[in-house]
């Protein structure tokens, strides 16, 4: 436990964590100190001056909270008249050269200038002289569009590119009120995390060309989730909306703080992977290429299973632990060969030392925990002898060339249970559509052996069953979520004492030896 100290805020004693700066220490007890330039991931800069607070008997008596560590007995003044006046005065100065184009600004609704105007200013403009004009709609590259006039020059974006990505594309050019953010000509944003500057920007100066003008943020519903773009398992906020007469659509992924996993950021590829939740989905069951009802295909599938001599069941490394264990139970019941072979999900040397992993699947660690075979030899050996392959969302075309897999599957019936309509889907004899990860609840284990659970974020108009449900209907003994979780608890001791919905938000760090704790 972090060391605690007592200090006073507006005369009221509060207990806060020692060694934090005043903004973080005091916000932990629910008291906001306004700030624009400070960001916990980027450190204190002290340029915006919004966080100036009074320190009773302090020397000096006025300090930037972002640069001031919380100390025992400190008497912090936030609601004193002279502090409220400073907050107002600084807000007035932030706004004099701001275009106040909120009606056409994407940030409207989640803008610190708007929020702080309401909280600390609320006065009419006294600006009767011409404003400073600067550049608008500048393409900074990597899908980032910049408006220099909306910018408050907090420098978060500049610091992000220098401190976090170490690519340094952005600079604060000029000085005085001509200061503006820019790229050096011909050297645009060129890093795989660039879109984080859009989230970091406290105002509407940095916008994403992908999200621009697509949706007013106040219409967006926010749900937490886990990115399935790679094995890191970055925490995300899924911003979605169901417009009248339309389906529930995801508009963007944004990073969600998880200090144990991704911190404050996500990569651009993961961020834009929301599109795959909206597009290219399989929403109908098929017999070969013909649409059929799901029930019809399930009945046909059961017949195929009954008829088959040798069955191979393959599953995706993106499946949740619940899905994996349900499939495993099904496999054991059918005496099938179970394989999680999915080498094609791994892009060698694509990862970095920050968030991006080589492995583009969300739960390969789960395969290992559940001791599901991963090898190519097992897969190819078994498939040659098999007369039926039941494939759970494993896009085999990532691991095999089309000719190769066609040859391997010759004489083998293929039932594919899939969230997406891929070329592999069309190769299957039968296809059953299932929910994708934003549409079901589950648990995954990331590349750092951290187990995380996520809830169902999206309910589509056609609310498809998830893989566990389909596996259950195909005969898996694990019929209910409760049974599945109990089965997981048998294997993963860290889950004991938890329910699916009370796993800590920051996840459970599993012991390296967790896989050895198999009791069955």
């Amino acid at each position, binding site marked *: 436990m972090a060391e605690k100290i007592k200090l006073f805020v507006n005369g009221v004693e509060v207990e806060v964590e020692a060694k934090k700066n005043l903004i973080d220490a005091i916000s932990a007890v629910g008291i906001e100190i306004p700030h624009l330039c400070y960001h916990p991931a980027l450190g204190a800069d002290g340029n915006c001056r919004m966080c100036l607070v009074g320190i009773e008997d302090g020397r000096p008596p006025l300090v930037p909270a972002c640069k001031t560590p919380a100390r025992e007995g400190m008497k912090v003044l936030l609601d004193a008249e002279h502090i409220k006046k400073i907050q107002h005065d600084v807000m007035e100065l932030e706004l004099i050269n701001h275009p106040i184009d909120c009606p056409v600004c994407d940030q409207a609704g989640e803008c610190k200038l708007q929020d702080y105007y309401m909280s600390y200013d609320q006065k009419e403009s006294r600006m009767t002289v011409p404003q400073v004009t600067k550049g608008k709609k500048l393409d900074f590259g990597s899908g980032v569009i910049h408006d220099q006039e909306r910018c408050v020059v907090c420098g978060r974006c500049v610091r992000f590119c220098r401190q976090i990505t170490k690519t340094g594309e952005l*600079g604060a050019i000029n000085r005085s009120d001509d200061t503006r953010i820019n790229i050096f000509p011909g050297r645009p944003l060129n890093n795989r995390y660039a879109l984080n500057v859009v989230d970091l920007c406290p105002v509407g100066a940095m916008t994403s060309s992908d999200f621009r003008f697509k949706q007013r943020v106040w219409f967006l519903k926010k749900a937490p989730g886990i990115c399935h773009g790679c094995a890191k398992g970055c925490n995300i906020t899924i911003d979605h909306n169901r417009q009248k007469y339309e389906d529930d659509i995801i508009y963007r992924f944004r990073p969600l703080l998880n200090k144990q996993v991704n911190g404050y950021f996500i990569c651009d590829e993961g961020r834009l992977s929301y599109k795959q939740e909206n597009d290219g989905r399989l929403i109908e069951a098929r017999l070969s290429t013909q649409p059929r009802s799901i029930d019809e295909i399930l009945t046909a599938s059961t017949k195929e299973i009954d008829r088959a001599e040798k069955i191979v069941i393959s599953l995706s490394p993106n499946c949740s632990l619940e899905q994996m264990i349900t499939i495993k139970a099904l496999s054991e019941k059918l005496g099938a060969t179970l394989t999680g072979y999915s080498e094609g999900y791994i892009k060698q040397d694509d990862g970095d030392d920050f968030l991006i992993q080589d492995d583009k699947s969300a739960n390969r660690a789960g395969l290992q925990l559940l001791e599901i075979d991963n090898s190519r030899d097992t897969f190819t050996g078994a498939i040659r002898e098999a007369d039926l392959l039941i494939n759970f969302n494993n896009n085999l075309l990532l691991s095999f060339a089309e000719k190769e897999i066609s040859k391997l599957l010759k004489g083998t019936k293929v039932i594919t249970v899939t969230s997406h309509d891929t070329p592999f889907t069309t190769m299957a004899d039968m296809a059953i559509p299932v929910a994708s990860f934003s549409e079901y609840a589950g648990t995954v284990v990331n590349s750092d052996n951290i187990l995380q659970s996520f809830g169902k974020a999206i309910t589509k108009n056609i609310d498809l069953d998830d893989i566990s449900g389909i596996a259950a209907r195909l005969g898996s003994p694990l019929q209910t979520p409760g049974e599945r979780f109990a089965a997981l608890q048998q294997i993963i001791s860290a889950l004991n004492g938890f329910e699916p919905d009370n796993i800590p938000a920051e996840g459970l760090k599993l012991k390296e030896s967790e896989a050895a704790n198999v009791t069955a």
Partner: protein
Amino acid sequence: MSDRSQLISTGKPFQYDKERDAEFERLVKRYPTRESMILPSLWLIQEQEGWVSQEAIAYAADRIGTFASKVYEAATFYTMYHLHPMGENHICICRTLSCWLRGKQEIVDYLETKIGIKPGQISEDGKFSLEEVECLGHCGTAPVVQVNGEFHEDMDVDKLKSLLATLL
């Protein structure tokens, strides 16, 4: 301060001549970090070319091993770096307090009519450029004019006439 963010591209790669190259290598040894060379490297560019182009900034950044954005920041922050070609004779007139009190405006007015350009401009023949600058630290001998780096103190129209005569 006015906007200095628009850099001019020469379309040609920049590099130091032999002398500046050697000077760069001499100076870089004087600092514990290479980034300390940002200001000196820009000075060397300006000494060589008379101004600082987009290519020259990129060159300095790469030579130092730093982000071009950092050199770009410095080049635009420090107003003595010329980001476009200047006149053969660059005339700076101090516009601040003591020079203003002692009649800098007469100097500016005379130069404007004589050369036919305003501060911030370059004459068509490229012979002159004028700039009003902030305090040059010669307040006791105001007004002061700096031509190609040389100070001319206690200026008045008569002195200016003879000074211009040497430049024309």
